[in-house]
């Protein structure tokens, strides 16, 4: 069973077609990278999967369950078991690093002891344990990226959505974080859809590459 199954999905904004009958499946532990220029519809696919917007036509299934269809959201984002790293990271500025991770665990009703263990474990995994009580504004760009990753993964989602999270980093940090993402993927075994316009980044991260242009999938192939 596919983790995500997008079937003939179309989406337009104010009459402008953003996606035109796009279909895409993502399998267990697969790393799909969507590559394409700005405005080609990459982020729209992620927002449709997350459930922030509904497709005008077509359907989306997550783990075999129908979650959106023909203009309707059938399952809200918080019930889709997803993690997401936003382009601007969207770290909550009023919460500490640990607080950012704890928010979702608390919402899921996890007990305090278990929450602490899960946060410690995840922060250890991304090498941020020592900075658990810092606010996001007190962290460097790379540290913020790690917190965003940790927050997305702490709930052990079956699918991780990454919306150009590395685009604003310098090349050196970008390269290091690519390695970090691959290491986490190997350790935790999640499926992933990563959106980027950087071909090198796509080649390094993908097990499968999807090239998009003007709302269409132009090419789809396994990465080398």
């Amino acid at each position, binding site marked *: 069973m596919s983790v995500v199954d997008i079937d003939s999905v179309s989406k337009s904004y104010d009459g402008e077609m953003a996606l035109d009958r796009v279909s895409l499946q993502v399998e267990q532990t697969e790393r799909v990278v969507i590559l394409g220029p700005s405005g080609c519809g990459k982020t729209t696919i992620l927002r449709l999967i997350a459930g922030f917007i509904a497709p005008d036509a077509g359907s989306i299934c997550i783990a075999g369950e129908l979650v959106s269809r023909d203009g309707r959201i059938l399952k809200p*984002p918080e019930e*889709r078991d997803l993690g997401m790293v936003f382009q601007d990271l969207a770290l909550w*500025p009023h919460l500490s690093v640990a607080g950012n991770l704890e928010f979702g665990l608390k919402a899921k009703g996890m007990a305090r002891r278990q929450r602490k263990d899960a946060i410690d474990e995840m922060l250890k995994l991304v090498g941020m344990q020592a900075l658990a009580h810092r606010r996001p504004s007190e962290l460097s760009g790379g540290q913020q990226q790690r917190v965003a990753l940790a927050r997305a993964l702490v709930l052990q989602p079956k699918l991780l959505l990454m919306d150009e999270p590395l685009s604003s980093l310098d090349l050196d940090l970008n390269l290091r974080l690519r390695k970090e993402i691959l290491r986490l993927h190997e350790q935790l075994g999640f499926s992933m859809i990563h959106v980027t316009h950087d071909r090198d980044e796509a080649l390094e991260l993908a097990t499968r590459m999807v090239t998009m242009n003007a709302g269409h999938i132009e090419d789809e192939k396994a990465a080398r």
Partner: protein
Amino acid sequence: MAKRGFLVFIVLLLLVIAAMPVVSMLLESVMVNARLSFAPYAGLMTSAHQWTLMGHSTALSSLVTLLTVALGVPLGIVLGKTDLPLRRLFAAVFVIPLLIPPYIIAISWSDLLGREGLVAPVFGTAFTESATHLLFGLPGCVAVLFTIFLPIPMLLTMIFLRTIDPHLEEAGRLVTGWRGILKGITLPLILPGILLSAMLVFLLSLGEFSVPNFLRYDVFPVESFVQFSAFYDFRAATAAAVPLAAITLILLLAEAVFLRDKTYELHPSADAGQRREIELGTRRRAWFVLVAVAAVALVVLPLVVLLVQSAGLHAYTEALSRAGASLMRSLIYAVIGATLLTFLGFFTGYLVHTKALRVWRTVDSLTIFVFALPSTVVGIGLISLWNTPWTNFIYGTPLIIIVGYLAKYTALTSRISAARLAQISPSMEEAAQVCGAGWFRRMARIVAPLARRGLLAAWTVGYIFSLRDTGITMLVYPAGHETLPVRIFTLMANGSQQLIAALCVIMIIATLLPVGLVWMVPAMRRSQAIK
């Protein structure tokens, strides 16, 4: 050089207009027979009456603040973040009481519930006696001021909601519903705005004198006004004003320490287009009914009462014959005041935004301090400074009213201008500078046109606040130059209910009609241009 020189001139102007009256009042309060004496303050501390006033003032302000924030914030969220039908219209309706002189709402409730009120024939004497007892006292004052200041937390909540990056809430949407997001993310993020609104409501309630005066509830501003206007006891009036100034100063210092950097410049989020609305779903109708009932009860009903009470051409003919000149004066002073406030506020906002002089924070704090001071305190300060034979060309003419507007309300136009200027890239002015344009030319041809919507908003706010001003004008207006709010206030003593209601309706039209025109004409031009 031109820039620095002009901004220094603006700072000096603000010192004379805003700072010196307060300093002069404080000095005068400690000078007894040309010698320094703190005896008036010692008397202040030991007087039981002063402590009663303090209790009344703080009880009134605290209750109004608690109520407005407790209901204004949820209302702001419902109107600013959900898919409630007609939410813009509702927001506009709820704002109306803030735009008109506060006592008008009190008059309206008195006309409805008072002994000779509209409901008297229906509900009988026992009901109106109880209602009158409640209205004329603390509960009535709280209810009326709640209606007037509810828009402050509501609007600030709506404004601060627009500054939240939608991704911060979307990140939360992946793990919890809207209830959890509002509690854990949205409300903590807009907390500075909520605290700011609480402080503003507290200070404005503390300084409000026309409503407690009408509803006969003794508070510091009423005492100050009565001591000055009825007994002409300047020292007693000042003594009643100083505690208000002290509380204002303490609260503003707290704001400067805890909130200033968080509320200073508000930027709409860059991803505002992706902002998510809370879908009310099956509860949409229930929310609509609830908000509609609140709007009718708090705003529409008082306005309808005034219309009913003033029904008939005769009331309006008499109103215009007795107060037509005051209406014209009000309009003229408000237009002049708004225009000068926009000019002064623009350059003060520019100074604060660009930090062009080292005193920028002092200037900003000064304007905010004087705005937060009760009108009666500012009025007494103006009298203390300008009532001399050498400055009679100001004090003895309507100029003193305009000076009062500038002293009190520059903070509003300055903040609006600074917020708008913050949205304009500095490179706009720099590009003009590279082209060889001098500072005045850059201001006139580049910066001001780019900030025109902010300037229009500043002018509108300046007009509204100048027109509705009662506290300052009441104390400083020269003989024969009373404005409409002052005229209504004085006619309340002996005018008929019908006449007062008609004057209130005229006052509301004088406020809302020009404001509506100022905003509608450019909007219509834009829509025609699009066609």
